[in-house]
């Protein structure tokens, strides 16, 4: 019998496909023809100096910023035209905050409704337990430390068992111990739930620890990408920090 080409299924699609993504404000180009794909279960890190375009890229993926050109597809759906695409996406960042007067549990209930989580109470109880913040669940978020608030934000981003988790500098405001703890929890839950992760960071250790591939952005473009081993070899570096400095200083990029 002749081979019949099967149409691609949802599982065949990259969880995230970014093609030629560009953002210009008048004469200023902040993201320039960025293209990459993230496959199911991958953890990809975006590194780059301030103003490299990392956060704008994340915001375009989330539909918070409209691209000037290019496209974003989340499991084949374009969030700029189809907000349902965001049902599969969890997001947290160091610069957002949950309403301070509400307790952690109340905030999670609110977002559970927004994402359509029917078993909200069970999911919340389970998440706060796995993130080890059960004792904080009924505390107003204004009484949380930065580390505790980060874990509450992570719980919010995980509520709907998303396929894609976007973390924009998730540990930027944390001390090394709290950041390490947060990273461990996120990695564990990502593994348990089969999550696909895209995270931005200034923290080389974080990216080395968590990501199998790294995109280096500079001046809005992807200046280099690859696995840590590929990048070390290409830049003759012993760590991502050296790679980062080479790229940030605009030295020769292979």
């Amino acid at each position, binding site marked *: 019998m002749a081979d019949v080409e099967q149409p691609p299924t949802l599982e065949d699609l990259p969880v995230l496909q970014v093609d030629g993504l560009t953002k210009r404000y008048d004469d200023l180009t902040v993201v320039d023809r960025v293209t990459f794909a993230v496959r199911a279960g991958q953890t990809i890190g975006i590194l780059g100096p301030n103003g490299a375009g990392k956060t704008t890229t994340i915001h375009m993926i989330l539909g918070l*910023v409209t691209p000037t050109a290019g496209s974003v597809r989340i499991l084949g759906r374009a969030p700029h035209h189809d*907000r349902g695409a*965001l049902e599969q996406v969890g997001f947290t960042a160091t610069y957002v905050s949950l309403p*301070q007067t*509400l307790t952690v549990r109340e905030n999670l209930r609110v977002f559970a409704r927004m994402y359509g989580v029917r078993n909200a109470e069970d999911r919340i109880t389970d998440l706060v337990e796995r993130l080890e913040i059960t004792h904080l669940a009924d505390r107003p978020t204004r009484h949380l430390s930065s580390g505790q608030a980060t874990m509450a934000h992570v719980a919010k981003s995980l509520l709907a068992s998303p396929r894609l988790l976007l973390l924009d500098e998730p540990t930027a405001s944390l001390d090394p111990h709290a950041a390490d703890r947060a990273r461990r929890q996120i990695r564990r839950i990502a593994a348990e739930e089969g999550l696909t992760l895209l995270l931005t960071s200034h923290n080389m250790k974080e990216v080395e620890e968590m990501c199998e591939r790294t995109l280096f952005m500079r001046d809005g473009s992807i200046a280099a990408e690859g696995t840590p081993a590929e990048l070390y070899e290409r830049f003759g570096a012993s760590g991502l920090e050296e790679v980062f400095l080479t790229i940030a200083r605009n030295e020769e990029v292979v």
Partner: protein
Amino acid sequence: MAVGAGVRADVRPSSWGRISGVMLRQMYLYKRTLHRWLEAVYWPVLDITLWGLLSRYIADTDPSSRIGFGLLGALISWDILFRAQQSVSVGFLEDMWSRNVLNVWSTPIRAWEYVGGTVLVGIVRVALGAVIAITIAGVAFGFNFVVEVGLPLAPCLFALLLMGWSVGIATTAAILRLGQGAEELAWALGFLFQPFSAVFYPVDVLPAWMRGIAFFVPASHVFEGMRGIVLRDAGFPARELAWAFAIDLLYIAGAAWLFSWSLRQVRQRGLLSRFGE
């Protein structure tokens, strides 16, 4: 593939779910913040007490005059419009103040669902203030607003609510577009309509140029109709209500367009991100 995961989320997204999320967030705010209760209860009580005393003074001066009752009814009705407007615009401000805007807009929520949630919470808030004001007017000042206006009260108040919501949506659109510096609009814009709404005086009192503008303010038709009932025992204000609802529809359509345009603009200009700063 998930390995050893705990409880997975059973996700069945719906518009109502997202609307109820916006409502729940506002309800929790009321549960946890005393000053929101003060705002919902304190101002209606204070206003109705002051104006009730004024109406009593007018009645003492001229026992045949019903102007005092007219003023009380106008105050209660204006408060309903103003609170409806505030519930929408302050609902958005709450998210802005708590740096929650990006959290909300990174969910699958649609613009109309967000606005719908704030409108529905507003109904509860407006109803609470109105019940308190109507009760005080009846018990303390002998003005039974519901009986005085009768059947037309429901469509009159609904026409005012529609105007309040549309001004609230337009205000939110302006804050969204102009940023936190424009938050005063949440309080100021509603009052801009007050002189043209002929709340406490007939439209005839207005100078000609203001009468021209007042015609395009739904509240002016509603207040004319209600004044006719309370002061002159006029019948059902069908003509006034028809104008009010027709202009309300234009207001709602205009406000919805403005909100949608503002959201598009802030997304194109990357301005939504500033609400996270």
